[in-house]
């Protein structure tokens, strides 16, 4: 009985996902097609990419409230630089901007020893302010519509680039957390900073 319960608890997410899929397959016509799977995965990937990063933070016992603001700022930077730099360099600068935001968060939390909840609440306001500043609070659009087609196209019938990147990062993070010293350090810090 207790073994069954603990198994249930250990695989609860998988079971929930399985149950959801079964219900969806039974009730929603056309749910089983690879296109549905590919598009669902693509939609999950945007939030999922942030979730991959948050996994690492939660494992270390921290939180980041500024994820959404960084998401917006990165997208805005990547979009408004397109006319000047071209699509892909602009995207790279966007990612670099996101990285900078993360570095700022890290600096405030570790350097100033501010609780991550409060620190990322503050940086959330700052990053959001920067986004509004850069765009004058107007929506911005890219120069090349074809890029969005490439990004959201299903490769080999199932995976978009975004979804592929998402799966790849999950795999990398999993290997990193379980197989490397740095990963195990993160888990150790999360379970007991003093002992670590």
């Amino acid at each position: 009985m207790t073994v069954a319960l603990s198994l249930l608890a250990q695989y609860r997410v998988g079971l929930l996902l399985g149950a959801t899929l079964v219900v969806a397959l039974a009730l929603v016509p056309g749910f089983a097609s690879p296109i549905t799977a590919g598009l669902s995965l693509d939609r999950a990937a945007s939030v999922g990419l942030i979730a991959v990063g948050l996994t690492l933070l939660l494992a270390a016992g921290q939180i980041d409230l500024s994820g959404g603001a960084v998401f917006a700022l990165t997208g805005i930077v990547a979009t408004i630089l397109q006319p000047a730099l071209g699509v892909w360099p602009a995207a790279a600068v966007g990612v670099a901007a996101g990285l900078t935001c993360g570095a700022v968060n890290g600096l405030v939390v570790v350097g100033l020893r501010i609780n991550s909840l409060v620190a990322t609440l503050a940086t959330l306001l700052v990053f959001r302010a920067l986004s509004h500043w850069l765009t004058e609070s107007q929506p911005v659009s890219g120069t090349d519509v074809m890029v969005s087609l490439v990004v959201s196209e299903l490769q080999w019938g199932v995976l978009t680039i975004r979804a592929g990147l998402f799966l790849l990062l999950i795999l990398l993070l999993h290997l990193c957390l379980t197989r490397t010293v740095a990963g195990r350090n993160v888990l150790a810090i999360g379970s007991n900073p003093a002992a670590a």
Partner: protein
Amino acid sequence: MTAVPASQTRHGSTTPLRAAGAMALPVAILAVLVLGILVSPSFLTLGNLLNVATSMSILGIVVVAMTFVLVSGGLADLSVPATVAMGAILALALQPALGTAAAFVLAVAAAGMAGVLNGVLIGYARINAIIATLATGTVILGIAQWAVGGVIVYGSDPASADLIKGRVAGIPVLVIIFLVVAVAGHLLLDRTVWGRHTRATGDSPPAATAAAVPVRRIKAGAFALTGLAGGLSGGLLGLTLQSARPMVGQGYEFDAITAVVVGGVSILGGQGSVPRAVGGLVFVQLLANVMTLAGIRTPVQGLVLGLLIIAAVALDILVRRRGGA
């Protein structure tokens, strides 16, 4: 942390620093007042100051309750936007069926029940407060939307809006309600056993448990309070606007946490008071008002506010020599 040994922080060399910490907030508020007078002739007018006071009152009710959450070591209540929305939506939606007063009471009670649910999950089931309130926020908002079956609800009793937006002896009714809540919250935290227990719980849960403090009940109580306060705040907001959308409470959680933290209440729990939190609220609201009068755009205001939080907390850590906060 740095050079000064722990023993010196209690007496001797850091006392001036500590005094500076206690004086920082009043001085900052005074500085904003002076800045406001310099920036705009319309700042120091009764009309403008009453406007600021009125607009901070609805948020202020949440700030008072959020102080209890932080002091009890409960981190923060992120379900506030949902309880505010529930209060606003139910207070208006139930008006035709129950009458204004009964609808209002029921709306506040429903939000209070949501707070109790948070309290049970966090205090008794020991789920992390951030995760728990994030989850219940979604559920509460869903229930409130489902209950009215629509997106926007409108009020059907304009007289109630006039009452809430009116004045008694020159003071806006909303401000009076806020002051009553603030004074009650202050007395509760500072003068009662519950308040002492709340501090003890936030200071060190194991020590509090050892001293026979009902730690679980105290934590649960703090979240029940934010639920009630969110409902009250939302109900008043609904009556003021005479309409309520599910997103009506958006940002209230962060604005409330900002005020409490800028007031110098540690997010690690154990210390802080309602007057400090209200001081933080007054400072932030006055600063926003001055920036608006000075023609500074909203995005830049966000920038200033974000940096302000970091500065306030960093100063707090420097003064108290306590990791985190």
